[in-house]
Each structure stands twice: as C-alpha cells, then as structure tokens.
C-alpha cells in the first residue's frame, strides 16, 4: 500500500516538474529571443524618456517645479521666471546627459512636459553672469536662472 502511494506521488511530482521544465524553458527562451530582437540602447532610452500620451502638455515652463533637494553635491539650482510666476528647482546634475545650458533646459522641459527650444525668448544667468551661449557647460553647484517671455 505504501509503495503504491509512493509510486503515485512520485508520478505526480515528476509530471509537475516536467510541465514546469517545459513552461520555464519555453518562457526563458522566448524572453531571450525578445531581448535579441527588442532591447538596445535606443529602445531603452525610449522606454525611459518617451513622452506619455496621457501626460498633460504645457506651454508655461513655470507651471510646475521639481520639489525637494537631491542627496548629492552635484546638483544644479534651476530657477525659471515667467509672466505667470516662478519655478524653483534643485536637480541632480548626473541625470543630464548633455550638461550644457541647452541640455539642462531641454531635459527639464521633457521632465515637465513643455517643449524647450533655443528659438524661444530665453534670457539666462549662470552663477549670476548673463549668458547668450546656450552651449556653455553647467558645473556642479551652479545656479542657473532663466527668464522666459
């Protein structure tokens, strides 16, 4: 009786492991093929920075601020001044791939949902010095203040 029970149990368990092996094997193979065909730097970047079609698009750069203070000494203080108000932000500089004034404003625009363009009427002060060249680098601890008409 006991042997019969053991043989039945072992058959059940073996059947389970076979089914598991088939599902796991095919699942992992499918994921590997998906990665081969579907994952590269461009796709990764699109996942992280692609614009959401559900997100509100704004034309007022000062409408929202990034609140809080990042735990890093490599930050940039970004102040935007508009006719409608002011947006005060402290951002970790490390997130910006392009650490120029143009790069910071473009990325900030993407984060908040407005389209930055150098053709727009921006007047910027970098560490209290007026700047015209948007390709100037922004260094850690910088204070970037831009007004927008």
């Amino acid at each position, binding site marked *: 009786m006991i042997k019969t029970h053991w043989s039945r149990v072992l058959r059940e368990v073996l059947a389970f492991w076979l089914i598991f092996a088939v599902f796991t094997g095919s699942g992992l193979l499918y994921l590997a093929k998906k990665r081969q065909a579907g994952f590269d730097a461009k*796709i990764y970047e699109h*996942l992280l920075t692609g614009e959401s079609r559900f997100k509100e698009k704004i034309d007022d750069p000062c409408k929202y601020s990034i*609140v*809080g*203070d990042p*735990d890093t000494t490599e930050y940039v203080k970004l102040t935007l001044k508009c006719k409608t108000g002011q947006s005060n932000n402290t*951002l970790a500089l490390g997130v910006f791939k392009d650490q120029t004034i143009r790069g910071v404003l473009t990325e900030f625009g993407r984060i908040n949902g407005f389209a930055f363009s150098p053709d727009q009427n921006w007047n910027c002060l970098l560490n209290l010095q007026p700047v015209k060249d948007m390709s100037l680098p922004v260094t850690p601890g910088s204070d970037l203040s831009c007004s927008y008409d």
Partner: protein
Amino acid sequence: MTKSQILNTLRNKRLWILVLLPLITLVGFKLRSDRGTIVPLPGQSTDEYSNAWVGMSLIQTGMPVGISGLSAYTNQDPRYINVDRMFSSGASTGNPMAINYPWFDHPPLMPLVVGGYAHLKGARVFEDASVGYIRKPAIILGTLLIPLVFWLAFQEFGLGVAVLASLIIAVSPLMVINSRMSQAEAGIALLFVLNLIWLNYYFKTKNRLYLWLAAVSGGGAVLFKLSGVVVALSGLVLLWMKTKKLAARLQDSLVLLSPTLAGLVFFLAYGFSLDPHQFWAVFASNAGRKYGIGLNAVYELITQTRVTALKYLTDGWFLVGWLGLASLFSKKNGMGIKLAVISYLAIYLLFGSAPFGWYRIPFLPFLGIAAAYLIITSLKDPKLFPLGALALLTTIGVNLGKLFTVDDPQTVFLFRWGNVLLLLAILALYVQFATKPKWARKISIVIILALTAIALASSLWFTQSLTLDAWYKIT
C-alpha cells in the same frame, strides 16, 4: 410563509452567504477604488512604478528594467521620470529614480501582473504607467482577499466569525489603504489565505487535488517575493501536525514543497539566463542589507501600524487581532491562523530590511480573523464578554479620535459619560453571570452587537474621510 418556514429560511447559512458576501465584497471594492489613485499619494512608494516598469519592459523587450538603488548593480542610471508629476507633488524627495537593469530585486510575478495590465491598457513608455492603471490590479487583489478571508474564517470558526472577519477586512482603513498599493505582499497575502483554504479541504476530504492547489498557491507566493516561501513552510508545519503517519507526511510534503522549490528554481534560472554575475551580486547585496526594522521590531509591529516608511495609520482592529490571537493560543482550533502569523513573524524578523508598512500586509487577513474570533467568542462565552467589549472600545476609540476633536464639550461629555455608563453596565452584567440569569446574557449580546456595529461604522466613516487633504495631515 409560516413562522417556522421563515425561521428555517433565516437559519439557512447558504442564504446568508449568498446575500452577505457579495454585499461585503462590493463595499470593500468601492472603498478601495474611490480615491484609489490619490491616497496614498502617487510616488510615496516608487515600488509601485518599479513593478509596472519591470513588467512593461519584460513584455516589450525581454529585459527587466526597474528602480532599485542597490549598489550591486553595474548599470546605475539616475533619471527623473515624472510619471503622475510625482516630482511636483511633494511625494518625492527630489532625488532622481535609480534605474537599474537587468532588475533582480524580486521575482517577476507582481511586475508581470501590474505591468501586464498597464501594457494591455496601452502603456508603452514608463511615463504612461500612471497609478490610474497600475493600482487597479492591486485593488482587485485586495478585493478578492475579502471573500477568501470569509471562506477561511467560515472553515475554521463558522458563519459569525466569517461575516465579521470579512467586514473588518473590507472596511478597515489600514487594509483599504494597503490594498490600493501595487506591492508584491498583496499577492502573498492572497495566496497565503488560499493555501490554508485548500489545505483545510485536503484534511477534510483527502482529495489530492486540494493538496496540489495548496502547493501551487505556495509556489505562486514565492514568485511574488522570496518572503512568500512562508506560505509553503507554514503549510508544511500544519501538514505535519495533521498527518500522523511518517510515510504520508513525507509524500504530502514532497507535493507541497515542489511548486515552491520550482518557483525558486525559476527565479534562479531567470536570473542566470539574463546575467549570472549581476543576479548573484544583487542577491548577496539584498542578503546583506541593514536591519532596518530595528531590535524593537515586535513591539513596533503590535503597537504601531505603518502604511509607508514614514506614515502611520493607527487601526484598532489589528491591535484587537493580536489580542484575539493570544486568546486563540489557549484553544485547539484555528491552528492554520496561528501558524500563519507565527511563521510570517519569523520571516519578517529574518528578512529585516526596512520598516515599510506594506511588509506587514500578510499579517493582516489573519489578524482580522483573530479579531473577529475574539468578538464572536465574547458573544458566546460570558467570561469573555468584558474582553470583547473592551476590545471593541479600543477600535471605536481609535476611530473616534480621528473623526472628532476634544475641543467640543458635547462630544467629550458624551464620550466620558457614555463610556462610564457602559463600563458600569459591563461590570454589573459580569457579576450577574455568576448566577447565570438569561436576561444578563441577552443584554451582554446586545451590547457586543451594538459596539461591533459602531466599530464597523466608525471604521467605514474614517476610511471615507481619508481625502487627499486628510492624508497630508497624517504623520
């Protein structure tokens, strides 16, 4: 209908279940989904987004990409992904999200549930994964827990405890808020309860299908989070207690543990197929985390009810649940409930990590059942009547303290003298029980039922009052 026909209909348990259970579940669903996307504030736990992103990236690209911040990851990519404008709402600290891949913090089942749902709803980039989508699967899991708690409590203790336990889980503010968050513990809690239900059927009928269903529940729990191993371990202890012959114990253990072992093997195979060095480094790093719950973890677990790391939401039901558990230990029944809580306590203390409120979710269904048990038993056992009444006063007091202030003299008058009169009544009745008059028993039953109704109503009221403004004021 004659009087006896009416009485027979009222005594029909199936009828009560068919009427009450869908109603209770509907109330629970409504409470969870109303304001489900604004309280807790989106971004108060970035785990919700991480779960969705890992699932979405797995489905779309085969590579899990999520938030971690563990230093063991080679690919460390801080980003501001302003989903739900969480960086503008104050929920965030201003730190960018630490994006890592391949993401191995936890097994992929919860991400696949949450991310899969978001993908079905059209989310294709990470910013699409709004709480409007990603909290829905959690709300459904939390709602499904209500009838499962009913079912388990009915198996263990009967209809009265089942109705009350499911009501507690449906209206408890802590349970409602926790049920909105897309955390893996929601899946573990569900499967933990289901595992015990199947095991109870197995012990009753000896039908091996139930054993396999229990086993699969355990395996599924581990695929939500590794702490889900508690489901199989707790079930194993219960199995050994209920099965006498060694051969039967070993055979059933082999069945019960196989899917859990398979879940662990799957996670290993999944990790090694993606990046074996990274997988091992993350596993070792997770194992070496700071013991964030602290050495007073058990005291804090009982006396404080956290929702996130920093927000506390005191809920008297679960304090009563610990009392109920204590009273259960002197009884033979409810062994599954007792083992579940003790086993998960062991896992909770072993894993340590951080004192996040959601790590406690798997305790809650069992504490809800224990609370219901204490109250229903106090209806039946005169010796427990004062304890049941005091337990209910605890819950009522916690809720009233949040709904009213002590600045209103009328409120204070009612509260002070209402409680004094009630306690005098309880004392008088308790003394009368020594001579066992019927009228004393009837009055005590009315008191317990009235207090239960007030406790449930005040919980419902408090849960409904948790608007965004009220949530900001909670510390």
